[in-house]
């Protein structure tokens, strides 16, 4: 086993043996289970609220598979992305502050391998958890709402996953650049909210990765997504951030 594969194997074992297994995968699974249920009960809840308010009439169409998927996608694009930011904040800075980076990097492991293994392990965890939770969401949606198409959810979750993977690489860069986990988390949240803000501007939404979120929603609605530019710029930004994380980490003294 090379240094990279040994360190990567350590990362996956660490995910399995520590709290990390419960955060992003746990949240994804939670939302996969609750989204169809929430979609199913929301009209009844709204009606009961309306009943207690004299003069208020709430008319909602019966819920469908699309409501279930939309609920799941909404949770992914808000709560899960924030969880990705929080957990990714300590990816490098945590190892640096605990001294474990020194343990590994005084062996035949390059700093580039260290950073790339961090990115690959987090990406692997996210992709695996997303596949499982999407399958769970589809099964529950079929159980509650009857036969439901899988294609729209797969397309929208795939576009969301590109956004989440970019966030992992951005957080690895911040975690390599800042000494404290809190500082990298703050920078990550700042980046997250800034991209939301910029996405309001139509040209940015159309031609940069900030448009991935709305493209994901459009895919669910089976509308044209115009996803080419957002995906291409996300890939470019991801490569640039990964290179930046390696560069910053190689310059540092431990």
């Amino acid at each position: 086993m090379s240094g990279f594969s040994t360190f990567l194997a350590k990362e996956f074992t660490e995910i399995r043996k520590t709290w990390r297994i419960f955060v992003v995968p746990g949240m994804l699974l939670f939302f996969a289970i609750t989204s169809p249920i929430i979609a199913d009960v929301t009209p009844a809840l709204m009606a009961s609220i309306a009943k207690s308010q004299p003069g208020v009439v709430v008319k909602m169409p019966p819920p469908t598979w699309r409501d279930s998927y939309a609920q799941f996608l909404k949770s992914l694009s808000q709560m899960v992305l924030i969880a990705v930011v929080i957990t990714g904040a300590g990816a490098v800075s945590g190892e640096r502050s605990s001294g474990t980076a020194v343990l590994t990097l005084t062996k035949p492991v390059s700093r580039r391998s260290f950073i790339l293994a961090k990115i690959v392990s987090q990406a692997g965890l996210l992709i695996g958890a997303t596949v499982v939770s999407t399958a769970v969401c589809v099964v529950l949606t079929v159980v509650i709402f009857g036969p439901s198409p899988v294609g729209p959810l797969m397309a929208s979750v795939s576009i969301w996953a590109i956004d989440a993977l970019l966030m992992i690489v951005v957080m690895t860069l911040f975690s390599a650049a800042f000494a404290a986990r809190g500082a990298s988390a703050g920078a990550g949240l700042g980046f997250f909210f800034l991209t939301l803000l910029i996405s309001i501007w139509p040209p940015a939404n159309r031609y940069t990765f900030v448009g991935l979120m709305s493209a994901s929603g459009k895919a669910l609605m089976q509308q044209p997504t115009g996803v080419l530019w957002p995906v291409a710029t996300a890939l470019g930004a991801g490569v640039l951030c990964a290179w930046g994380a390696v560069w910053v980490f190689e310059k540092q003294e431990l």
Partner: protein
Amino acid sequence: MTDAPAIEITRLVKHFGDAVALDGIELAVPQGSVFGFLGPNGAGKTTALRILTGLARPTAGAARILGSDVSTAGNDVRAQIGYLPDVPGFYPWMTALELVEYTGRLFGIERRALRGRAESLLEMAGLSGIRTKVGGLSRGMKQRLGIAQALINGPKVLLLDEPTSALDPIGRRDVLEMIASLRGRTTVFFSTHILADVERVCNMVAILDRGRVVANAPIAELKRRAAVDRVVIDVDGDPTMLIGEIEKRSWVRSIERMGEQIQLGVTDLKSAQRELPAAIAAAGLGLKRLEGAEKSLEDMFVELVRHAQQ
């Protein structure tokens, strides 16, 4: 083994902003030696070790391990060294065996050979059979685990930063015996501020103070240098007059009185041994003892550091 030094440090300088951590140190550590890197806290020992392991970069100068420049050689050098930091950081969710096996795999050691080697190193470190996670081990146990993991690749150069600082007397003795047993096979370079450890196992020592090497010699030579310039006299009576008399002598460098005992620092031991009995008799005192005292490494260390600071 060739005659080239295992570690060669040339005019090594390290600045942290305005602070000078290393101020042009020069060292050559022979292969197979146990080399003590001695100095008070803050002398620059850990900084030098961090440069040797590639964790930090020098401001100027160079450091070589087995002929390769540590700042450019990368994995080639790291594959041949073992390193124990002063405060070792381990993954708390691993067991001791998992940790040693993990470090072994980083060196590319085959899985079949690795288990046996890891178990024997843990046995040597007194940690065999311990199933507790590393997070639950005491500091001393972690230190011993650190030594075990540093030896997993059978390193040609073993770099130890304060390896005995967190150990109880038995653990310390065991570690020192283990270090001594490596002499001739592995070059051991260990930093410490515990003089007794250096005297016990090292055959060479460098004393570092404020980023400068103030002494660098084989232990035996350093002790030989220290042994000849101190004389202890025990007299029968008040030595005040005697002190007044002998402090005029040109070979006297320092006088220290403890009751009826006088300790003299001398530049010419033969003159001191010849003239002192007569001076004692002239002062009307009886001579109970007159001997050349061997200055300890501690005396030497304190003297060198004080001198450098002045």
